[in-house]
């Protein structure tokens, strides 16, 4: 079903998926998001900047009139260079941020692998963190108890389960965090850059788990810089550039566009023109937008 749906959505015109009988699981309808960068926060900084006649703040469009419809069971790769707005889009889907214009609608339970580990508390033990983090991701007490052993086994940190998480290696930390998130069984799964961590065997395990979740018909939106992996994992690619959707369709084609963009940015960087691939680039705001 995915190839039909992606073909139709390619121009971004089929926002409400004309003709499809399954209701969509994510609808992003003409969404814009604007960020304000404040250069001065204290009164002192403000006066200094005002005297020098410098701007106190700048705004830039992290997302500009983006529309996207994702059907249940689709695996969508969001591609784009740093600052292209893909992480912002993911945050809007998860509800962490709200759009300035347009609307975002979702169906079912959402869980995000967005910087896993955000919910892990270093002073608590691994065991306590499994309960806490699973509850943060929306699981109930009984559900956590039922899946506890599975989570621990997946993470491979059995021996250190009763140690404080601050003594974990970064690999163990990420493994535990991923294991919890991967067992939440959401209807919509958002994945941001987490697959870059961990040793190769664990990474394989993560990918296998993602394929398994995909096989169960869950909707997935994945952000990563590993284009080859995305091409294998996803059946649809969305390419973002400066907060706008520039391509929506075959994942390999989206990957090719991404490589072009990266090439352009590298060229620009080596010839000394800053790192902006095209007019009005937001490369200078990488940290905030991505």
């Amino acid at each position, binding site marked *: 079903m995915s190839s039909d749906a992606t073909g139709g959505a390619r121009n971004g015109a089929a926002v409400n998926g004309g003709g499809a009988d399954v209701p969509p699981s994510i609808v992003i309808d003409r969404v814009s998001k604007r960020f304000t960068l404040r250069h001065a926060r204290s009164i002192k900084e403000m006066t200094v900047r005002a005297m020098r006649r410098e701007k106190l703040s700048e705004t830039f469009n992290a997302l500009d009139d983006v529309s996207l419809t994702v059907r249940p069971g689709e695996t969508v790769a969001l591609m784009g260079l740093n600052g292209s707005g893909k992480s912002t889009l993911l945050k809007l*889907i998860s509800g962490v941020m709200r759009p300035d214009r347009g609307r975002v609608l979702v169906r079912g339970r959402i869980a995000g692998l967005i910087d896993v580990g955000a919910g892990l508390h270093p002073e608590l033990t691994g065991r306590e963190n499994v309960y806490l983090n699973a509850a943060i991701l929306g699981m109930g007490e009984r559900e956590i108890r039922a899946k506890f052993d599975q989570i621990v086994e997946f993470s491979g940190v059995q021996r250190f389960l009763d140690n404080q998480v601050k003594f974990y290696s970064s690999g163990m930390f990420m493994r535990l965090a991923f294991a919890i998130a991967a067992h939440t069984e959401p209807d919509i799964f958002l994945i941001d850059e987490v697959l870059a961590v961990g040793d190769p065997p664990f990474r394989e395990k993560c990918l296998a788990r993602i394929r398994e979740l995909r096989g169960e018909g869950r909707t997935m939106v994945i952000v990563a810089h590993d284009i080859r992996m995305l091409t294998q994992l996803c059946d649809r690619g969305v390419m973002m550039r400066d907060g706008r959707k520039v391509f929506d369709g075959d994942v390999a084609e989206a990957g090719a566009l991404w490589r072009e963009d990266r090439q352009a940015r590298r060229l620009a960087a080596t010839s000394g023109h800053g790192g902006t691939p095209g007019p009005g680039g937001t490369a200078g705001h990488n940290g905030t937008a991505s």
Partner: protein
Amino acid sequence: MTAAAPRVAADGLRPPEADGGLAQVFRRRYLLRLLVRRELKARYKGSLLGLGWSYVRPAVHFTVYFYVIGVFMGMDRAVQHFPVYLFSGMVLVNLFTETLHSCTRSVTGNAPLVKKVFLPRELFPVASLLVSLVHFLPGFGILLAASAAYGWRPTPAGLGGAVLAFAIVVVLGLGLGLMCAAVNVYFRDLEQVVDILMIVITWTVPMIYPWTHVRDQAPDWVLDAYLANPLVSAVSLFQRAFWFPGTRQDFAFPPDLYARAAVSLAVAAAVLAAGRLLFARAQRRFAEEL
């Protein structure tokens, strides 16, 4: 703005942030319980005294007030059973100041979580309030024991007043706490303001001295303003409940104490409603501001 859109459409599509608000905190009470436990465990982790530190601060305050104000300045002779008088006000004032202090920092202190995962953000101030209540319980137990040792016997009117006083403090504390938590995300200055305010609160309630000193020394309008403070009514009611019955019963409480307290509770409820509204509006931009 999307606020006017229906929360859940017929096909199950809804805005991802539809699960927010103070009412949702109750639905996620398992998570709330874990957050409270995390707070209690993590705050004193790695210190030798552990949770014991939550007793040290009030104990030091009590000792200083008792010796300086009670013994050196003679309050002990002016107010019968001064230690009980002092302590019955102190447990309540500590509950209020600690709630306000920790609520103010609750959202900024959980910044990684607020930015990455969507949760009803009201969870954090409510968890702070519950942590303060856990700290209040042992102090309250000590108060009951001390009052009993000084010849206190519970009276229905007194206990009713105590419940009223407790309600005023909790409702007002959560209301102001929600406001402070929200504003502190935008202006971190508030943390400093609240800390200074805590000193003012301690000295503008009849906890260390009786209210009659204000009546006899200050102009009428100051007394009116003083008695209008909901915390003054709450503290007086606690003294009425736990200190007064054990004394010669010749102390005159502020006029219309119960009527004033009822009005105070209404004011506190209004503050809570306003705080809830302010927080709900402000939290839309939390992820960007943190």
